[in-house]
């Protein structure tokens, strides 16, 4: 096996892809929510709830897939709450998003205490394992990077073409975007705006939940308070930097996390200072992108505006 620069490149790429995965899935979920015309700031809180639900589910069912299911359900419920408040009651989406973040932070920490008490020993749970793809994983450099990953990583990257196809090539996808662009017109065409937004919000939140689950039962193997640590905000940045396109979001997540991987690598070699600046990278890039793109950000026209029928 190759040891040396190629080997390092393979490993760096592999860890970049692994780190990008939770961001990518959450951002794809957020994309669905955004495209339906909802502005969702509460990604961080939704993911936090899911990290705990995944650990608890894995602990009680004995299977990491059971944990994933719990995470999806928990995140979906958060999505339902967001949808009810912002769609049915037409509440300010930004404020509700902030409330979801505070709720996610508090509830995940509180439920952790309820379920696992104060014991300092971490409950051992089933977690995701690498699933090398026979044959392909033996390819030098690229094999370790692309084909020797955990199942969720494959799912995340497969979701990119799937969601792309859904949004731009299918009727329901078109309807979804119409609702986000001009709900009034969509309504006159017979599209149920409320129902479309509800479904997009719940399904999108479930994807955020998958991202959260991967954090606590894939990347790490336990729950800790505030463990999402800004990844929800990076997902928001990824959607904007990726210009509301699944492929763009994929590259955005990988570029953002490359900074992080590089930072960790530099820390190993004792170069500490740029660490904080590399962590800032996603946010700075997004602000710069917003400044340069201006109004042509491709954001759905009706994003953030509540829809009122009649």
């Amino acid at each position, binding site marked *: 096996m190759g040891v040396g620069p190629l080997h390092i490149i393979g490993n760096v790429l592999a860890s970049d892809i692994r780190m990008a995965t939770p961001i990518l899935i959450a951002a794809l979920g957020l994309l669905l929510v955004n495209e339906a015309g909802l*502005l969702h*700031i509460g990604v961080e809180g939704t993911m936090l709830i899911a990290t705990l639900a995944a650990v608890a589910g894995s602990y009680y069912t004995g299977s990491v897939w059971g944990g994933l299911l719990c995470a999806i359900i928990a995140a979906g419920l958060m999505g339902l*709450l967001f949808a009810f*408040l912002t769609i049915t*009651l*037409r*509440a*300010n989406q*930004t*404020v*509700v998003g*902030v*409330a*979801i*973040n*505070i*709720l996610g*932070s*508090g*509830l*995940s*920490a*509180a439920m952790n*205490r*309820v379920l696992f008490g104060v014991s300092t020993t971490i409950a051992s749970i089933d977690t995701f394992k690498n699933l090398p793809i026979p044959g392909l994983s033996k390819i030098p450099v690229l094999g370790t990077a692309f084909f020797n990953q955990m199942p969720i990583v494959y799912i995340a990257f497969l979701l990119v073409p799937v969601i792309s196809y859904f949004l731009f090539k299918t009727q329901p996808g078109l309807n979804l975007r119409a609702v986000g662009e001009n709900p009034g017109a969509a309504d006159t065409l017979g599209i149920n705006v409320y129902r479309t937004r509800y479904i997009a919000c719940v399904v999108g939140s479930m994807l955020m939940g998958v991202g959260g689950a991967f954090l606590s039962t894939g990347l790490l193997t336990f729950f800790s*308070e505030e463990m999402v640590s*800004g990844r929800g*905000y990076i997902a*928001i*940045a990824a959607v*904007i930097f990726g210009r509301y396109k699944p492929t763009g979001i994929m590259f955005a997540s990988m570029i953002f996390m490359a900074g992080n991987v590089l930072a960790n690598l530099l820390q190993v070699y004792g170069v500490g*200072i740029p660490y*904080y*600046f590399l*962590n*800032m990278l996603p*946010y*700075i890039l*997004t*602000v710069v992108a*917003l*400044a*340069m*793109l*201006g*109004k042509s*950000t491709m*954001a759905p026209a009706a994003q*953030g505006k509540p829809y009122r029928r009649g």
Partner: protein
Amino acid sequence: MKIDKVKLKSTANRSLTSVGVSVAAVVIALVIGMLLVVAMQKNPMKAFTSMVNGAFGPGYFTETLVKMTPLLLTGISFALCNRCGLTNLGMEGQMYIGALFATLVGAYVTGLPWYIHVPLCLIAGFIGGGLWCLITGLLKVFCGASEIITTVMLNMIAQFLIEYLINGPMIATPGGNPQTKNVLASARLGTLIKGSRLNWGYFIALGCIVLFWLFISRSKKGYEVRVSGMNPTAALYSGINIKKNILLVTFLAGGAAGLAGCIEIMGVQKCIQSAFASGYGFDGIAVSLIGQNSPVGIVFGALLFGAFRAGGNNMMRKAQVPDSIVNVIQALVIIMVIGSQMVLEIMNEQKLRKQARKEA
């Protein structure tokens, strides 16, 4: 005359309902929070009494006022932007930068008497937060960038910038705790009551509430700002320069949040530590929401959330109940207040529609 009375009665009724709704929301949220305490197999009565005692008990109430101080200012910050039709989510970042400017002046400029040093620090903190938020205003005016997103991004940037500074160039003792040097004694806000942390910053924040009221309800500029927020098209046609107003408001709102960070350093913390402003920014949104963007409302909102923070700390110490419960309670209060406000609005709409149908 008669119509005026009816109108007066209906507005009085409405504000009475909104107060009732807020109180009900707090009660329900507290009950749910205590149910969580029961689920943790802790004594809810002990938790509740230690919380109330920690917030309002003798010797503790000053701590509520201490926690209330930054909330007053972040509440003003959010409300001011909101009146102009902007959503400022960046109060936390603005607090960090305000604190940074104040610390630079307070810890590194020496040899000044307190009556010059203190105002200088306050001005520096105001300008720091103001400039940080002005970035958002400029991006909005000249690039059309959504302020909601840019403020969130700037929060994270400010947070990492502070982490870098307190771990690197500004660390008090290299290799020691990640914190800056203490601000000099001449740059500190004196305590009001001996043995407490309550300081003059509290009155500065209350003074800002008065200034906020004067600006928004009694000045021409404030009127322009309100018109720009309520109806940008009308503002445009009446010759109001919306862009200029956005820049002014973002600077002032950022300044208020910057002042919050600055006072926290000069009056309470003495130096910048990691995440010292954690949560104050987003809590400011809740404060302003509960106060419905009005000066008096913000005072009550800040008192409530200050009490939650102080009470939560005491609950953690005395009843060993984690203060994450307080986060849950606060989030539920926000959700229920905003939810019931919308329900009332929808009910009102339906009533009007029915009336219109009857008249037709």
